[in-house]
């Protein structure tokens, strides 16, 4: 892997705390003398935050599609009636 990709791998190791102890120490030392590495860490943390948001959106869309199936398709009408009856005003 090229150097920049190895750096991304190392930063991931730092973020998820999976770097071996020697590498973790070396990384922290490099952070002190290399401001660009610190910037890389900052942007990669933001990238992980965005990936999580993206993934949750996708997962929520999948769950909503299942909901629509259950509450629209005829084969699930028994289930649908059972649920909706809970919310009927008496």
């Amino acid at each position: 892997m090229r150097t920049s990709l190895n750096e991304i791998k190392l930063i991931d190791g730092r973020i998820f705390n999976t770097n071996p102890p020697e590498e973790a120490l070396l990384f922290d030392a490099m952070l002190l003398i290399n401001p660009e590495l610190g910037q890389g860490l900052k942007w990669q943390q933001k990238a992980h935050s965005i990936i999580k948001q993206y993934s949750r959106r996708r997962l929520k869309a999948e769950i909503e599609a299942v909901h629509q199936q259950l509450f629209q398709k005829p084969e699930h009408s028994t289930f649908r009636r059972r649920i909706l009856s809970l919310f009927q005003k008496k």
Partner: protein
Amino acid sequence: MAQQNTFGYTAADREQAFLTLYKQAFPAVAKYVSKLGGSFDDAKDIFQDALVIYYERSAVNALELKLDEKAYIFGIAKNLWAKKFRENVFLESVENCEMNFAHEEDTQPSAGKLMHYLETAGQKCMEMLKAFYYDNLPVKTVAELFGFSGERSATVQKYKCMEKVRETIKQRSLTYEDFLE
């Protein structure tokens, strides 16, 4: 570290798993919410958020959660309901930090623009990064799902995608000055 197949590996597997969970666990949650005066939409929102939390927990540690899925999801939903309506209910078993997830998105207008860009121009990379980091799938499985010749190629592509997304965020943040600051 990788997911133990609780939800399977593909969208079709997840669809089946969510159908089963919906049928098993939603009636109890709906009954509970209804009893406390909530609407069908309240029950739906609470239950769907509970499923997301359950999915994320099982992606991290599948074995712990195989004991009783229905009871576990019901517990999360109860806590979400308590939080949503600020009832004086003791929050148990699920950490508070997990409860805040539903509202941490879209807090920055420019983050929405960036997300839209990534969802369109960078979707393939985002899907792969989701598989690695969110679904926590094994490298071998990701390689198969995304058509790579082997685990090494998939791993290299993962870091290339991370590099691309990282650079995009950096560039866009300079354009949208208020992004994530």
